[in-house]
């Protein structure tokens, strides 16, 4: 009896599964989506974006520094200023105009009619609150050290003045990035807890949050009250979480998503062949090998020079970066203030004999070094392995250790490196000074150098430079100086991610920061 029941049950289950499969197969493809036909940008409809992760630090703009958080807050929030598509020219945004009253004083006039997503107008007091909040230690903003505010004041209804302790060439650029200076509503921000602000927003940006489904989906809709009409172009944008890169590539090819980011050059090539749009190559990812110049074999400058001369950068670019990289210094070439390294950079020319000679002169015997790499990014490993082999030819033994990102950063910041070199890859930062501060800032545990001249150069680039052109020149000099002293070895800079998108998205410009700040133009 029971046997019969079970037998039938099994058959029933099989039949049911088959029937269900067929039934749903029959109604597949019912998902409707409007598609624009004209070539112009603004045309309504919905866009589906696939992201590898959701905002790590939530939606509070000034807490965002990882890609996943920056690219979301860039849709919800804006600064007083904004960047033009060349990523260097400044444009007015929440502020309608600005002027520099003195080297340390700026005045901003707010645009009329700008409202937050909840409908309340932006007031000068909101701007003051937003900027003071960044430097409040209780906020934990990673951008606190980039500002030297002496005072921020509201002057009347629509004017805000910023007074600095010393001149700061980076200020306007910082105010133009949604993450380093997003304008928030004072009343709204105070009414929400820190945790609530991680999954809710109230900015002035082109899109507003419709639903936050942790672990699967972030739904956004066009902000009808946006000041920069007729932007944005889409009625709605869905951000779907798809952690696996090969799945994202499949989803894009099959048309179930319209846009995503990929990291592997082989996927980029495959997508290009299939006629998918691929954003330009932005070499923002300087392959940093920070040197522990404070202790161990690398305290000896000649050993460091031997390493820099003993690696074949051309081969590393060809194989390690799969041909997409270029010569670079600590400040990456695709940073608006960066520049590529040239072949005449000190210690950049591959010369085995010279390397051996330097090593002999250093007096160091049996040099054994360890390099710590981030384990989550397998793409960085071949370069390290190739360097290990190249260095073995000049008599240096390199041991490769792979650590999770959290641990690697923890080791770096605590100053207990547990390695002679730490590898990290640059991503476009809020300001070029951050790259240098991470490795070389004076008086913090992570720094392994003692060089007042470099510190002076770093400070001058922020406070003395008159314009971006001059800052750019100063960072090129710093790149050269770091290469000369070999405080860091940079084999190359390569892209860290490519924006890729299907036919639905028109006139999209992928920016070097990979945060889709120009999505509203599409």
């Amino acid at each position: 009896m029971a046997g019969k029941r079970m037998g039938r049950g099994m058959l029933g289950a099989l039949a049911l599964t088959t029937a269900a499969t067929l039934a749903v197969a029959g109604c597949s493809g019912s998902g409707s989506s409007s598609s624009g036909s004209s070539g112009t940008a603004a045309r309504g409809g919905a866009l589906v974006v696939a992201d590898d992760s959701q905002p790590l630090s939530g939606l509070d703009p000034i807490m965002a520094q990882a890609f996943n958080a920056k690219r979301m807050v860039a849709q919800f929030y804006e600064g007083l200023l904004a960047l033009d598509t060349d990523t260097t020219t400044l444009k007015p945004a929440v502020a309608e105009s600005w002027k520099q009253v003195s080297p340390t004083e700026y005045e901003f006039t707010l645009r009329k009619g700008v409202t937050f997503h909840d409908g309340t107008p932006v007031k000068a007091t909101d701007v003051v609150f937003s900027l003071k909040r960044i430097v409040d230690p209780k906020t934990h903003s990673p951008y606190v050290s980039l500002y030297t505010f002496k005072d921020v004041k509201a002057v009347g209804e629509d004017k805000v003045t910023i007074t600095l302790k010393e001149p700061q060439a980076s200020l306007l650029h910082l105010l133009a990035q949604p993450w380093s200076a997003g304008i928030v509503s004072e009343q709204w921000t105070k009414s929400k807890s820190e945790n609530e602000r991680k999954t809710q927003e109230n900015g002035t940006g082109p899109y507003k949050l419709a639903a936050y489904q942790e672990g699967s989906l972030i739904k956004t809709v066009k902000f009808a009250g946006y000041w920069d009409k007729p932007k944005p172009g889409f009625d709605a944008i869905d951000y779907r979480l798809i952690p696996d890169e090969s799945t994202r590539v499949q989803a894009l090819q099959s048309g179930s998503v319209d846009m995503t980011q990929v990291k592997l050059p082989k996927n980029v090539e495959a997508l290009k062949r299939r006629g998918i749009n691929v954003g330009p190559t932005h070499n923002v990812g300087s392959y940093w090998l920070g040197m522990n110049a404070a202790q161990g074999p690398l305290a000896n400058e000649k050993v460091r020079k031997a390493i820099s001369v003993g690696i074949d950068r051309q081969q590393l670019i060809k194989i390690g970066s799969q041909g997409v990289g270029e010569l670079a210094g600590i400040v990456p070439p695709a940073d608006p203030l960066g520049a590529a390294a040239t072949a005449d950079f000190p210690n950049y020319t591959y010369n085995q004999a010279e390397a051996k000679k330097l090593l002999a002169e250093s007096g160091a015997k049996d040099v054994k070094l360890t390099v710590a790499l981030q384990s989550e990014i397998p793409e960085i490993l071949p370069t390290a392995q190739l360097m290990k082999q190249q260095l073995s030819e000049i008599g240096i033994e390199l041991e490769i250790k792979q650590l999770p990102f959290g641990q690697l950063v923890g080791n770096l910041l605590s100053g207990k490196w547990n390695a002679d070199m730490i590898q990290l890859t640059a991503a476009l930062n809020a300001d070029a000074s951050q790259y240098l501060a991470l490795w070389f800032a004076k008086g913090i545990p992570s720094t392994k150098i003692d060089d007042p001249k470099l510190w002076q150069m770093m400070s001058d680039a922020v406070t003395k430079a008159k314009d971006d052109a001059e800052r750019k020149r100063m960072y090129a000099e710093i790149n050269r100086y770091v290469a000369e002293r070999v405080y860091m070895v940079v084999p190359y800079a390569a892209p860290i991610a490519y924006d890729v998108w299907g036919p639905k998205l028109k006139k999209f410009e992928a920016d070097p920061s990979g945060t889709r700040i120009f999505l509203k133009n599409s």
Partner: protein
Amino acid sequence: MSSATQVPSPKVRPPEERAARRFAPPPLVLFLGTRLLRGVLVMFLLSIIAFGLVHMLPGNSVDLLAGPYSTPEVRAQLTRDLGLDGPLIEQYTHWLGNVLRGDFGISVFNGQPVRTLIADRLPNTLELAIAATIVSIAWGVPFGAIAAMKRGRFFDRVARSATFLGLATPVFAFGVALVLFASMVMPSWPTLGWVPFTADPVRNVQALVLPALALGLPLGSTICRYMRASMLEVYEQDYMRTALATGSTRLQATVRHGLRNASGPVVTIAGLQLAGMVGQSILIENVFAIPGIGQLTVTSILQKDYAAAQACILLLGGVFVVMNLVVDLFYPLINPKVGGLR
């Protein structure tokens, strides 16, 4: 019916037998009581391991949250604000106390209560696990039975090769292959984009088909092998020979007498697989972008989201403890000799 004096094999458990005689609790209660106590003890040890492991993992959430460009002051402030500055043992007792009151803490990254995170995701993982179990039984049981019936013939050889392939293929590789296949054959199939059942049942089932196949087919291989072996054993039994001798066809004998007798071990395996499947789902959820417990476990461990990671480990361990309890409960029913039930 049940009496302690009738417990078999007195050589094995004389002290328990004596104890049972003194207090005379029903053997089933004793059996379940010890199992339950053992379960609680395991959960307690697991809480220590979960807490210890997560906190011993290199790196910490403050460094990740504040990021490499933060100042030491900001990190110190954040450490204090997150309550990570006290001694570990203090943090543990605080956490355990909260857990016993049903408060699993708040995720430091998205600011949501861990209980909500888990409650949102658990149905998805359970749905996937149940669907995959159905798939694995739907192919494993009939194919195993037929392979046994046609032992040594073509069908048997094909089924055995298929199970071998199923056992050898990693679940995630199979998943990626299915995504590829689906996107070529049925590009419009909503492979990705999980929709909860309550929101849109049709889309939900559509999105479930591929991951259930990816998870269920390889696991069904084990069931298929067990079913085949178990059926072959049954064919040797006297009652099968009698059934065949009294005029039943091989198919009739198999369906009427064989399947039930052969399915004992298969039920056990399927039950334990259901528990294991929650672990396996970690891989599949990543490939098919399903917001489930597996995905939460991986991200929370990678991000050092202590509260969420600890809760996930406790939950995964808890599922095993409960499934073991359930299987233990089933044993006395399947085999009355176990647990002194006669």
